[in-house]
């Protein structure tokens, strides 16, 4: 059986990144869009860990970065969900198509 190497990890993380980007552009539900952003952030985490493990195992910057990314992602999600709840109160929907007062 083949040992997973750096390229496998990078392939997974790149796939995850583009699934996230695709989801962000196609989904119309705000919570799903937020989940897509989380996918992007997690792909970044995978990237950092893979680079740290296979290439730069003597430099721990990658691991530290991952910890901070997780913390910041939580903070961002907290503010985003608060805003989405407020949007739901005023629009009675969390579909982006219904938030359309500001145009052109």
């Amino acid at each position, binding site marked *: 059986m083949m040992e997973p190497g750096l390229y496998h990890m990078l392939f997974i993380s790149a796939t995850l990144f583009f699934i996230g980007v695709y989801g962000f552009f196609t989904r119309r539900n705000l919570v799903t869009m937020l989940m897509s952003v989380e996918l992007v*952030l997690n792909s*970044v985490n995978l990237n950092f860990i893979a*680079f740290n493990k296979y290439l*730069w195992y003597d430099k721990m910057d990658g691991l*530290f970065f991952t910890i901070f990314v997780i913390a*910041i992602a939580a903070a961002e999600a907290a503010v*985003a969900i608060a*805003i989405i709840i407020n*949007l739901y109160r005023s629009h009675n929907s969390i579909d982006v198509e219904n938030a359309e007062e*500001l145009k052109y």
Partner: protein
Amino acid sequence: MPNEFFILMKPELVLTGIIFLLLFIKLGKGLKNDTLLLLIQVLLLLNFIGGFFFNKEGVLFDGMYQTSALIALQKNILSLAVYLISLLFADWFKKQEHMPEFFVLMLSAMLGMFFLISSGNLLMFFLALELATIPVAAMANFDLDKKRSSEAAMKMILSSAFSSGILLFGISLVYGSTGSISFAELPGLLNGSPLQILALVFLFSAFAFKLSIVPFHLWTADVYEGSPMATTAFLSVISKGAVAFIFMATLYKVFQPMHEVWYNMVMILSIATMVIGNLFALRQQNIKRFLAFSSIAQVGFILVGLSSNSIEGTTSVVYFILIYVFSNLAAFGVAAAIASNTGKENIDDYKGLYRTNPFLSWVLALALFSLAGIPPTAGFFGKLFLLTAGASKGSFLFITIAALNMIISLYYYLRVIRAVFMDQNDEPIEKIRIEPSAKFALMICGAGIILVGLLSWIYDYIQNLV
């Protein structure tokens, strides 16, 4: 040495002190809004004045945090802008039930920007950028009962979350190809390999989101229009200024080995930004949207100066942002005074404003002349230096396009001035009572617009710091 820590991190520590003070005042809730606003204004003024003293060059936390005379000056420009905002929007602040929270959010975002300008490491840079954007989304939602405000905040937080995802992917590629995230080590490790170019593209697009450079500008106008006026002014002046400073520092210092790559990127994006910003500004009716697109076009001009990759480039960008602070805040201040008294935000409503409100009309005219770049005002000198710096690279087609764009921009700036001064209107906006503090701030802005251009030592002073 502990002493050095306090001196080098002074701007951040002072700001943190003010934030905590405001939080405690909010807990006590003994003060009325009027007194509290006065207290905040005094604190911000002290913060601005204090920025001139005890500035030292140095590095802290193993290169994570760095400061120099130029960085101290950039922080001072931002402090001045926040002080002016606290004066200009006094009318709106006094009506807010939760005013201290607004300032806590605004100053937290400012703190993030201070760390951003001072960052010497990509980790620090990322944390500071997040601290500088997340509170702004909450500020955009400050008119809780307005539909537009929550829509603007939603657009702001989603686009900024997405752009920080892209930024992080770029940083991870930088780390992967060099093994370092420190600004001091990176220039020696970058060699222009395809992976690093890809990383640069990702980083670049994240910056473009924050600066609203053209392919990534779509959120700007919506967020500007929907948010409260104070947030819009903060976003368009302070947030943009801070990101422009760090963008310049990253390109000039960290990505210096790849400057031929990024020169082309900056040039193409600059042309696109100027052209599209100008063309969309032509058809705007709402004054906030109009100023949003005009600020997009101004960023295009900042990129012209930035492309030069020289001392003149740094000087002209810092100088232009100083002028931009005065001109844009004056324009937003006038718009806010009219909107908070009458609720009118359309350019057509401004017809005949000169007959009833000569002071506001003159300030607005000065601000718009400065944004358009007409000689007696400082905006002319700012743009002149930006284009001269850009021309030093020798791409004259690029500079010609920039100059042509200045002429297009004249059309829409003068359209507003024509509406204010020349158009007839049977029912002009009635005489508006301006808050004394707002009037004072508008006078500072007006004086700044004229004096910064005429006093040539300001430019030399900045150049000596670079």
